[in-house]
């Protein structure tokens, strides 16, 4: 009875339903069904046709990247503007290994295999994370942010100029798609399941790390560095660990991206990408996993919707003003962020800590904490 109640609670049923929809999503047969709404008729197939699936894969890729970036500003409280550098390193690691080694003789060809590349890219990202982090993590606040910004620019400059290795501004093309045995990932459906699998693994990984001793050390550093040191936490070490983990998740995202797009070029990893990912986690709620996922979803979806809608808007206002609106996507992001900062500065699904910072001494948080506390600990 007790067991039944526990498993059949409304929340669990909803969760199971959600999981089912997520799993079946690319295969729901909607082709040929129409929904009428006030004289307009919508083709239901649009919900999971090839283009929409592509966007959904992109959304999940950004979710994965946001989860990785979130470790730095959300958990350890440092501002990182150079995340895209690690994303680029991962993408180029994957691209170059595939192009150069996939067709090589047996032992070397392993290095061109996607499943070998993923951990290699993660390691390479972590390596650069440590190389950048170890000397610079003594800096605080804005100074650290500037260094990370410089790092991401440096990555692009190196990729642009070392053309013997990276093919310079032309980029690397003809990257083979990932495969399991003889099955090659060619359809968006296959990539949908691949990125879903990777995203779930990353979420579980980060959740568990955040609940462990390492995560507690990060939170301690974020909250008060002097007190953290006084209880025996080696601040630099744990910041470097955070940086390495964040960087390796960025690199894993990049490795997937290269094999999915089958083409990489330096202008895919511009500073703008870092800002975009940072906006996602701020929009969703710094430090909260649910928030970060929601932020990535909203920003990526909004970008695609605007891409489709803005040309129509341009047509509509042409009689009044002859302006180009297609480039106005970024302005819309700016407006969204300004509105957020004004009315909900803590993000959409904030962590309790951030609510407390933005609205000091809310009794609601206190109640929420005491209610859920023992449930959480019991597991």
């Amino acid at each position: 009875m007790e067991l039944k109640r526990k498993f059949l609670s409304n929340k669990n049923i909803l969760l199971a339903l959600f999981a089912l929809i997520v799993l079946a999503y690319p295969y729901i047969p909607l082709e040929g069904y129409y929904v009428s709404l006030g004289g307009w008729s919508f083709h239901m197939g649009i919900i999971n046709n090839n283009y929409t699936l592509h966007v959904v894969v992109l959304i999940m890729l950004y979710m994965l990247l946001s989860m990785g970036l979130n470790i730095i500003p959300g958990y350890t409280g440092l501002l990182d503007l150079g995340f895209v550098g690690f994303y680029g390193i991962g993408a180029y690691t994957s691209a170059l290994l595939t192009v150069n080694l996939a067709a090589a003789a047996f032992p070397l060809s392993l290095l061109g295999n996607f499943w070998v590349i993923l951990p290699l890219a993660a390691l390479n990202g972590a390596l650069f994370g440590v190389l950048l982090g170890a000397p610079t993590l003594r800096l605080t606040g804005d100074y650290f942010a500037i260094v990370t910004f410089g790092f991401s620019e440096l990555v692009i400059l190196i990729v642009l100029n070392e053309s013997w290795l990276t093919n310079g501004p032309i980029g690397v093309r003809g990257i083979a798609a990932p495969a399991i045995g003889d099955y090659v990932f060619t359809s968006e459906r296959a990539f949908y399941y691949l990125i879903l699998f990777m995203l779930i693994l990353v979420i579980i990984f980060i959740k568990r790390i955040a609940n462990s001793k390492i995560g507690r050390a990060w939170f301690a550093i974020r909250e008060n560095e002097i007190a953290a040191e006084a209880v025996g936490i080696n601040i630099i070490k744990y910041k470097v660990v955070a940086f390495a983990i964040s960087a390796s998740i960025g690199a894993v995202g990049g490795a997937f991206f290269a094999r999915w797009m089958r083409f990489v070029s330096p202008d895919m990893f511009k500073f703008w990408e870092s800002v975009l990912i940072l906006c996602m986690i701020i929009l969703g709620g710094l430090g909260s996993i649910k928030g970060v996922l929601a932020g990535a979803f909203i920003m990526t979806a909004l970008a695609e919707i605007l891409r489709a809608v803005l040309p129509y808007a341009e047509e509509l206002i042409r009689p009044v003003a002859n302006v180009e609106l297609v480039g106005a996507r970024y302005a819309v992001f700016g407006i969204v962020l300004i509105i957020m900062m004004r009315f909900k500065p803590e993000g959409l699904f904030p962590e309790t800590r951030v609510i407390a910072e933005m609205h000091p001494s809310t009794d609601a948080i206190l109640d929420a904490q005491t209610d859920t506390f023992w449930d959480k600990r019991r597991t």
Partner: protein
Amino acid sequence: MLLQINNLKKYFGGLKAVDDVSFNIKRGEIVSLIGPNGAGKTTLFNCLTGVIKPTGGDIYFHGSGKKMKVTGYRPDKIAKAGIARTFQNIRLFPNLCAVDNVKIGRHAKTKTHFFGAIFLTKRYKDLERQILENSMHALKFVGIPHKAAQLASNLPYGEQKLLEIARALAVEPALLLLDEPAAGMNPQETNQLMRLINKIRETGVTVLLIEHDMRLVMKISDRIIVLNYGRKIAQGEPGEIKESPEVIQAYLGEVQHV
């Protein structure tokens, strides 16, 4: 012997904040460090815990049984060696709940289980349960177990001070440094604190405290060390210190003979 300080000096430019101070602390003692404002007490604490590097002199710590030179160590290494502290202006982790504050105090005493944490092995789960039990025990010890789930920043001032002590005790120190634990407490809370400090000593932890509340200092200290202008001017049992002319002079000023 637990702590041995030899000729400790800390100069800030021309200002001699701590000037040639030497003293020893025996295991199981409660020692108070007193002196007028600006006498160098907190600077001495900061040298002891590695927050600032002393200009000269040596600090030896015998926490683990053998003599260990800890002068100029990083704060986290000193904490690991067995010296825990609280702060004059409270430094908690304000947006974490009370028990998480104490759990972080267990940091130095727990092994990192990276793979255990990811695969949730039985050993890791046992370890986490142990950390939680130890933390709850520390909260019970200072008398605020019912506040475990509250955010540290939402606790009243006195309880925040107790939480800081609980966090320091979670480090399992051989020596506990308390920087003005009774500041801002009412007489009733001060009495509770006095009982708590005695209880801490009974568990085998040596206590060194800075305090301005003379009633508390005189009642619980085994020994008192008096600093003035960075120099040690007196040391002894509460009775002797009360009578010492140098101490009276430091606190009340020189007697003017007209």
